[in-house]
């Protein structure tokens, strides 16, 4: 019995998890429970299969004939696939559990069943994408994934903004798909079949074309700048557990595509790596800069996803460069950092979106500047959020730091230490990474402070309440993941080595552990934790004998402080927004103060997406305005229509020529 059949069964379970619900009434919670149970069953089965495959160290594959020319139903699981399968099975499962509390069927009779259906379909399609080894199968799985995500994200399609965001997403993903059509058609043209197997040799320009097509086609899904236009809106307007899956896993499918194609293509031109590095660096810095400017909590998280994708892209770029210049260590560290960051991001970004869901549920708004003081109401959520935020800022000793650390070391290696050859210019990426880190800290301090700390800025925040257990448990699980990977990154390195072998098509000459002392990193991390704990205890001891009084915050003698006097998130980020205004082009709305007794004045600032709102949208609007001018060609005059026939006949006769 091939383990792949089990895996396919698991995928089918995921895919059909929402179906029973559709047969039940619109308000029965049973359907949702069944869906979650099926998701859990499928995911656990899938994880078991992956674990089995990894332990056996085998790479099972399966190939059946089906209806299309030069195409087979071919699936396989190699370490790369396994690596990406694991988040695919974990996050959606947690998401559906979270959904039990967040999107109760009884409260959403209009779209609950539909959401459940497409949520499962999305998970299944992503799993299929990762194991597909045939162009057509891949495309089918890919598009099912994209469409399922669309329908899940536009669950509330009675809201105009949701429709708009969904439409932009749909266009973007379709453009991506068309590029992939070209990609696989060319692949077939070059290799003679749709089978996605390595070891073909291409003419240089063919390989380059394929690489560029893959970069653009998958870049749209992954959200590389400037192809990210769909991302913020879609993530902001989707239900939070859908956003979590989209951001945590679906973006990684784009990454997977790039990884897979680069693995399939032979060692390419020298500029591939640097290009990817540059794009990644730009994406990460710009992404986080935009994130700081946002007021919408989920838009902010979406932009930070773009940033993380940029970091992953840097890792891949380094790996490509290393492969091209035969520096196994660069490949190892770049690829390892990128892959590990794929996992890490799916952990902490899902965690953060779950948090955001709980917060929005409590505060009834997505506007950060309306929140505040939620720490008192949602202490557990806040604690989990701190973990997620610290992790996404790559702060030690959490998982984000582990992956970025690998990447840093890899980038520093390109300096060419100890006389070995290097590409020092590449190391500049490390500086971009550092800047990203600093900006990320600013960004998430802003969120933490404006959302959870201080005092409530609005009524709704006043009587928010802690979410129920089904919503907290998934968050807790993800937070544990962040901590464990952060403290013991060495544990996952064997998988990285295996993935390296698949990608570079030769075993890793040296293990990651040999290349970088991950053990010492764990030691340092534990030391830090120990130190902090010790200090905490000693402070407790000291304070036990002291008397601790409660009082109002010192406000420089101001008599009656109110919540609205606090520093808002926007003002917190403002100085940075101004610093990067050449990139962000923030919009300010202020009413000037006039006279001795000026009327009440207001100030508002927002950061629109430069690419979407200043480039793409105007372009679409203009074309939309001028294309209809062609309608004059069809004014309903029959004789004009007949004239067209005459003209085209004469043109064809003359242009075609008599050829006698």
């Amino acid at each position, binding site marked *: 019995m091939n383990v792949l059949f089990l895996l396919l069964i698991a995928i089918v379970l995921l895919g059909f998890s929402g179906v029973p619900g559709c047969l039940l009434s619109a308000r029965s919670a049973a359907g949702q429970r069944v869906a979650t149970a099926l998701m859990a069953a499928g995911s656990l089965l899938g994880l078991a299969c992956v674990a089995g495959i990894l332990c056996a160290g085998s790479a099972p594959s399966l190939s059946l004939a089906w209806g299309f020319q030069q195409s087979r139903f071919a699936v396989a699981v190699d370490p790369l696939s396994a690596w990406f399968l694991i988040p695919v099975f974990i996050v959606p499962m947690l998401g559906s559990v979270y959904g039990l509390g967040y999107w109760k069927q009884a409260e959403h009779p209009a779209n609950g069943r539909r959401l459940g259906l497409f949520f499962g379909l999305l998970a299944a399609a992503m799993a299929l994408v990762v194991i597909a080894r045939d162009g057509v199968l891949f495309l089918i799985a890919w598009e099912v994934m994209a469409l399922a995500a669309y329908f899940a994200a536009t669950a509330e399609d009675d809201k105009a903004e949701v429709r708009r965001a969904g439409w932009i997403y749909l266009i973007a993903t379709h453009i991506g798909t068309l590029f992939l059509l070209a990609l696989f058609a060319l692949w077939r043209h070059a290799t003679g079949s749709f089978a996605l197997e390595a070891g073909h040799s291409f003419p240089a320009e063919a390989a380059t074309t394929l690489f560029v097509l893959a970069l653009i086609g998958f870049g749209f899904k992954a959200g590389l700048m400037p192809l990210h236009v769909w991302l913020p809106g879609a993530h902001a307007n989707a239900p939070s557990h859908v956003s979590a899956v989209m951001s945590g896993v679906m973006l990684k499918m784009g990454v997977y595509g790039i990884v897979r194609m680069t693995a399939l293509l032979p060692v390419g031109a020298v500029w591939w790596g640097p290009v990817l590095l540059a794009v990644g660096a730009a994406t990460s810095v710009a992404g986080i800069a935009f994130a700081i400017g946002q007021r919408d909590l989920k838009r902010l998280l979406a932009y930070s996803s773009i940033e993380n994708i940029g970091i992953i892209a840097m890792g891949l770029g380094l790996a490509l460069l290393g492969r091209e210049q035969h520096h196994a260590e660069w490949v190892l560290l770049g690829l390892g950092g990128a892959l590990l960051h794929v996992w890490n991001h799916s952990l902490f970004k899902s965690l953060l979106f779950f948090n955001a869901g709980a917060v929005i549920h409590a505060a009834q708004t997505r506007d950060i500047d309306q929140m505040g003081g939620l*720490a*008192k109401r949602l*202490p557990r959520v806040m604690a989990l959020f*701190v973990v997620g935020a*610290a992790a996404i*800022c790559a*702060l*030690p000793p959490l998982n984000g*730091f582990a992956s970025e650390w690998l990447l*840093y*070391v890899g980038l*520093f*290696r390109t*300096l060419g*230490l100890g*006389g070995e050859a290097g590409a020092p210019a590449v*190391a500049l990426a*490390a*500086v971009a990474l*550092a*800047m990203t*880190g*600093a900006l990320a*800290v*600013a960004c*998430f*301090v*802003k969120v*933490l*402070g404006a959302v959870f*700390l*201080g005092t409530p800025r609005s009524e709704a925040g006043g009587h928010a309440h802690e979410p129920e257990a089904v919503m907290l448990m998934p968050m807790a699980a993800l937070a544990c993941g962040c901590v464990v990977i952060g403290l013991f990154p060495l544990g996952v390195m064997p998988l990285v080595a295996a993935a390296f072998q698949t990608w570079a098509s030769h075993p890793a000459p040296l293990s990651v552990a040999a290349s970088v*002392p991950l053990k010492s*990193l764990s*030691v*340092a991390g534990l*030391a*830090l934790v120990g*130190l*902090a704990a010790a*200090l*905490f205890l000693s402070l407790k001891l*000291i304070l036990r004998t*002291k008397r*601790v*009084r*409660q*009082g*109002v*915050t*010192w*406000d420089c003698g101001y008599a009656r*402080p109110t*919540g609205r006097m*606090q*520093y808002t998130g926007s003002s*917190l980020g*403002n*100085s940075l927004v101004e*610093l990067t205004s050449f990139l962000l082009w923030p919009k300010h709305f202020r009413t000037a103060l006039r006279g001795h007794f000026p009327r009440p004045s207001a100030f508002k600032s927002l950061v629109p997406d430069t690419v979407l709102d200043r480039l793409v949208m105007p372009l679409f609007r203009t074309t939309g305005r001028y294309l209809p001018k062609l309608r004059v060609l069809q004014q309903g005059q029959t004789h004009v229509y007949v004239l067209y026939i005459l003209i085209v006949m004469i043109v064809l006769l003359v242009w075609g020529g008599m050829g006698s």
Partner: protein
Amino acid sequence: MTIVNLILHVAVLLLLPPLLLGVITKTKAWFGGRVGAPLLQPYYDLAKLLRRGMVLSTTTTWVFRAGPIITLATVLLAGLLIPIGGFNAPIAFTGDLILFAYLFGLARFFTTSAALDTGSAFEGMGSAREVTFACLSEPALFFALMVLAKVSGSLTLTTMLQGPTNAFSADVAAPLVLISIGLFIVLLAETCRIPVDDPNTHLELTMIHEAMVLDHSGPLLSVILYAASVKLLVLGTVLLHVIAPFEFGKVWLDWPLYLVEILGLAAIIGIVESVMARLQMRHVPYLLTGALLFCGFGFILLIR
């Protein structure tokens, strides 16, 4: 021998820092023509604060208390990562320089959060400035680290900092000079000294660090002050390794040498503080950008 060094290292790291503050204030007083507080005044202050009780704002949560603690923990760990005097750091491994840099990030994260926890607008301003300026000083620091790594051919702080024996060979001298200027500015910014920030003023609107700790009192405040001084020592030591890489290789000579150097650095800082005025807040980014450029040029110069 290493045991002795280890003990000395920890002892210096734990005990010396407040003295630096003392030296700085003494220098400033001397410039101001005053007698000034005794050199050991900071120790007395810390002791006094530890004995006091404290006031907690009703709006605060555990984050408020976690801020100082974690800051102290991080700077102490950072202190264990760098070599003090001529001796290896207690914790040294390839890539520890990145951990070193990110420990300050962690500290920043919690300090600023703790400040925001009070819900006071002034502390908000303080945090905003802190995180903003860090976005410029962090890349500068990384440029400097890259230069050191390239020069020393190692990714371990110990080797990197003790490395530049050939520091005065022509091809690396210029970069090292440039980054040491940059590092000095970063040092001033990170430890909130004039011209970036003034640790003595209490005009909230114009401050960075002091604005963030307005509400901390008693033991917590003492932790904060102590942590700040440790940070000063750590960064100062790094700077010293770059600008004055002298060593005799003998314990009984190198430790005193180090003490002289670090106190001298403190004195220099004191002088700077005395002769300069604090910059306008909106000019600080230019200064830090300058630091960034110094370090950047140093790097470019090195790899060209």
